[in-house]
Every structure is written in C-alpha cells, then in structure tokens.
C-alpha cells in the first residue's frame, strides 16, 4: 500500500516539476525576448514608419502615416520623398561615403597598432599577461567622453604636442590640429583600440605554439612562419576585431563633434543635427534606415563569427 502511494507521489512530483520546468523555460526565454522585442525591434519598425512620413509643425513634428478619414476610409500614405531627398542631396551622400572612409581607415590603423600589442600580451610570461590584459581593459572602463576630451588639451594651439614640435624645431608655428580630419582619425583609433586588441588577444592566445615550432624545424624563417601560420590561424580574431571597430565607428557622433571641424561630414553627426537642429524627424529616420541597411550585413557577419567562436 505504502509503496504504491510512494510511487504515485513520486510520479506526481515529477509531473509537477515538468510543468514547472516548462513555465521556467517560458519565463527564462520570454522575459528578455519580450523586453528586446518591445524596446529594440519595435522601435526600428517605428523609425521605418516615420521615414515614410511627412514633416509638419506639431509635437511630434510628423504627419500620421495611417489615418481614418471622415468618410470612413483607412488611409496609408507613404512619402518616398525623404529617401529621394537623402539620395538626391550630395551632402548626405558625401556624409555616408566619408563615414565609411573614416571608419575603414581607422579600422586598418587600429589593426596595425593592435595586432603587435595583442601578440605581445598573448606571448608575455604568465603574471605579466594578466597585468597587460588589465591595462588594455582599463581604458575601456574609463569614460569614452573624457578620453576623447583629453585630446582637446593635447592637440590645442598651446598644448604639449605643439610644444614638443616647436621645441624640436620641427615646426615654426603651432600646428592647427584640432577641428581637422587628422584629429578625428586619432580620436577614432584611440577610442576603439581596446575593441581591436581584445578579440585579437584571445585568438592569438589560443594558437597552438607547436605549429610554429614545426615551421621553424622545417626551416621556415620567423617572418614567413608569421604570415603562413600565425596570421591565417588568427583571421577569426582579425575579422571580429575589425567589425567591432568598424561598425560603431561608421555612426560615431562624439568624436567628429568634439575633434572634427565644421566640414568633417559624418553620418552620425548629420542624423544628430537633422534631429536636434532642424527637428526634421522624417529625414533623420530615413538617414538612420539607410545607415542601418548599410550596417546590417556587417552585424550579421559579426554575429556569425561570434557564434562560431563560442561553439569552438
């Protein structure tokens, strides 16, 4: 009797726990999914909608896209004028092209500086490695805004960089470095360097050193071994690092706003000015949609690389 009751109790408990598991699973997946859908996915659909709206003087400064008219007609009016305006105006096209150029060049520069750094950290003796790693992470935790701001003082007319150049007699007059493209490139590489070094470091650290020994045993010179063994095996890290720098750099706002001149055209800044300066929400939205379309491919690529890295 008791044995049967015990078995039934056990079975009931297992059934209850299975139902609990199902509810738990729903909660674990559902809650963050719901949050990201409401606050990340849906907003993009709204941006898309506003990009097809007309500007009007009101708050919010857009005409409704869908209206219910007095003679009971559901009207959907999509204005493509914002997009033809964006693609027709050479200023916007130039801003897009220039953003891609600035981001691309900054990415290459960051890779050239970041790779030897990551290599050095990954090959450093144990205790040193942790310290150096921490030194790369630390600027990442320090305010982005303040790190960009630091260059305002350094590059200024009577700043230390000009001071050194004058003292060495390299220039006779202080150089105008702020509000130039040079300052923007410098700020970009400086701010995004940790994003480049971290994935490179983890790729180089994973590298099997015996492969390099084998190459050396077979008479391969270190430089050749680097280009035929090390570099191809760390390509994954290179791609990840480049995408992590390139994607946010294309839409960067703070660096061109603080270090660039009035003629430094970058799309993040244009979106900002359209929105806050001209209060033209539809054009700002159209620009954001075009920017998003350009970057989507890169984001998908990054996600695939990261997913593969996690499985490995």
């Amino acid at each position, binding site marked *: 009797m008791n044995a049967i009751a015990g078995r039934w109790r056990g079975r009931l408990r297992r059934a209850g*726990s299975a139902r*609990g598991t199902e509810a*738990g*699973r729903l909660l*674990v*997946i559902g809650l*963050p*999914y719901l*949050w*990201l859908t409401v*606050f*990340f996915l849906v*907003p993009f659909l709204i*941006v898309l909608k506003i990009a097809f709206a007309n500007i009007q003087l009101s708050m919010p400064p857009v005409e409704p896209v869908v209206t219910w008219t007095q003679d009971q007609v559901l009207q959907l009016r999509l204005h493509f004028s914002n997009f033809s305006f964006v693609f027709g105006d050479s200023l916007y096209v130039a801003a897009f092209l220039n953003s891609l150029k600035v981001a691309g060049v900054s990415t290459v520069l960051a890779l050239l*500086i*970041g790779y*030897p*750094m990551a290599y*050095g950290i990954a*090959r450093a003796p144990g205790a040193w490695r*942790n310290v150096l790693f*921490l*030194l790369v*992470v*630390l*600027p990442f*935790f*320090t*305010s*982005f*805004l*303040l*790190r960009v*701001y*630091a*260059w*305002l*003082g350094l590059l200024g007319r*009577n700043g230390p960089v000009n001071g050194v150049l004058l003292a060495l007699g390299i220039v006779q007059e202080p150089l105008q470095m702020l509000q130039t493209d040079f300052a923007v490139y410098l700020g970009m590489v*400086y701010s995004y360097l940790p994003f480049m*070094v971290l994935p490179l470091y983890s790729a180089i650290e994973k590298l099997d050193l015996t492969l390099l020994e084998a190459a050396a045993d077979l008479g391969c010179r*270190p*430089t050749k071994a680097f280009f035929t063994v090390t570099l191809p095996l760390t390509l994954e890290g290179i791609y990840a690092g480049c995408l992590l720098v390139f994607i*946010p750099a294309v*839409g960067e*706002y*703070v660096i061109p*706003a*603080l270090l660039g001149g009035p003629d430094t055209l970058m799309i*993040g800044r244009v*979106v*900002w000015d359209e929105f*806050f300066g001209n209060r033209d*929400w539809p054009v*700002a939205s159209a620009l954001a949609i075009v920017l998003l379309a350009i970057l989507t491919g890169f*984001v*998908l690529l990054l*996600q695939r690389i990261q*997913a593969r890295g*996690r499985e490995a």
Partner: protein
Amino acid sequence: MPGRRSLFVLMAMAFGFAFLYLPILAMVVYSFNASRLVTVWDSANSPTLAWYVELFHNAPIMDSARLSFRIAATNATGAVILGTLAAFALERYRRFRGRALFGLLTTAPMVLPEVITGLSLLLLFVALEQAVGWPGGRGATTITIAHITFSMAYVVVVIQARLATVDRSLEEAAMDLGARPWKVFVVITLPLIMPAIASGWVLAFILSWDDLVITSFVSGPSSTTLPQLVFSKVRLGVSPDINALATILVLIVTVCVVTAGTYLVRLERRRLRDAQAALGAAP
C-alpha cells in the same frame, strides 16, 4: 632572429600602451594646474587642489552626478537580471522557436551606432505616449529603460561565456538527487557564475554612467546626466574642473577594476584548490 622580432613586438607594445595612457596621464597632471588655460603650466601657483574644491561646490555637476549614479545602479541591476535570463536561454536551451532572432537581438545593440538606437527609442516613447499615455514625458525612467536595452547585450556576452564553462554534470547530479530546476539554479549554477554576474553588473553600470548619445535622445529637460553636462561644457573647449572630474573618475575606475581583478583571480585560485582537494579525497 627571434630576438629582433621580439624587440619589434616590445616596441610596438610600448608605443601602444603609451598611446593609450599618455592622454589620460596628461589630464591627471593638468588637473593640478592653477592656470585657467589648462595646458599652460602656471608654475608659480601649481600644483593646486583649487579645481577639486570648485568641483565639489558646483551644484549642477554634483546633482547630475547623483542622477547618473542612480540611473546607472538601477540600470545595472535590471540589465543583470534580464541578461542572466537571456544568457541562460541561449546557452542551456539550444533549440527554441525564434532563437536566431533572439541571438541577433542580443548582439546588435552592442555594435549598432548609438544615434540609431537613441533615435529609435525616442520615437518608440513618443508613439507609446500617444497611444497609451505612458511614459508621460521623458526623464530618468526612459533613460533607464534605454540603458537596460543596450547594456544588457554586454551582460549576456559576459555571463554566457561563464555559463559555457560550468560543468553540466554538477547540475545533472543535483537534478538526479531530486532538486527542482529553480533550486539547481540557485544552489549550483548561480554561485558558479557569480563572478560573471558581478563583472556584468559593473560593466552595465559603467556603460550607463558613461553614455551620452542615447541619453541625449531619450532625456527630458529636467534630467541632465553627468555626460550630458560634461559634453555641453567641453564643446566650448578645455575646462580645468573637467580635468579634476576626469581624474577622480579614472581613480575610482582603476581602484574598482584592480580590486575586482585581484578578487576574481583569488576566487578562481581557491576554487581550483578546492576542486583539487576534492579530487584528492575522492578515491
């Protein structure tokens, strides 16, 4: 031959770290300069703590710092709760409907330009207000929601990486001994991923504390965060009290990161030792 190559690597590292740290160092040094011109050293009256004193008497800066702190702490807590759930979903439930989209939604906020995220969230809040009357103006609440949305992605990465290293057999053993899934999570999994949760919290806090662009889109006239205040000041050029502020923040972050780093290393070592002791005692 190897000697020459390592010399190149050493020089590249020295250059790289100098590049990363000299600007920060310069900011710290200039914060003690008495001159209002910031980069012109006034050797007669420097070093001085005058800018620090002025900073603490600057009511708008202190107010916005308090607001930023409150938002950052709330954000970090929310982001850790949602981020842990999301990381668990991605790592433990290998298959569910819409997993690919879920993965994309947890990666994209990390890399998408902030102007896009900020603009889209503002348009959402405006649309919501028209439709249901909430959130009723923009301020600390909308900023916090926006911050949770983008900083959660970073938390997911940190916690998912940790979850992947947790020995599944420990969870299975607890399950075999009759523990419910929730209990397994609290008693076994949670303590094991605690370091990742702690670093995720700190990361989310700093991302929120530091954010300017997204905040500018979703904030209202009555809520000015510290980065917003700093930005409006530095747009006009270098300012000595901002150097003092930067120095304090750099100091706090350094102490936090170094403490957390050493603590985590020690924790890891103790766990390894415990594991070895347990293995040694087993047979």
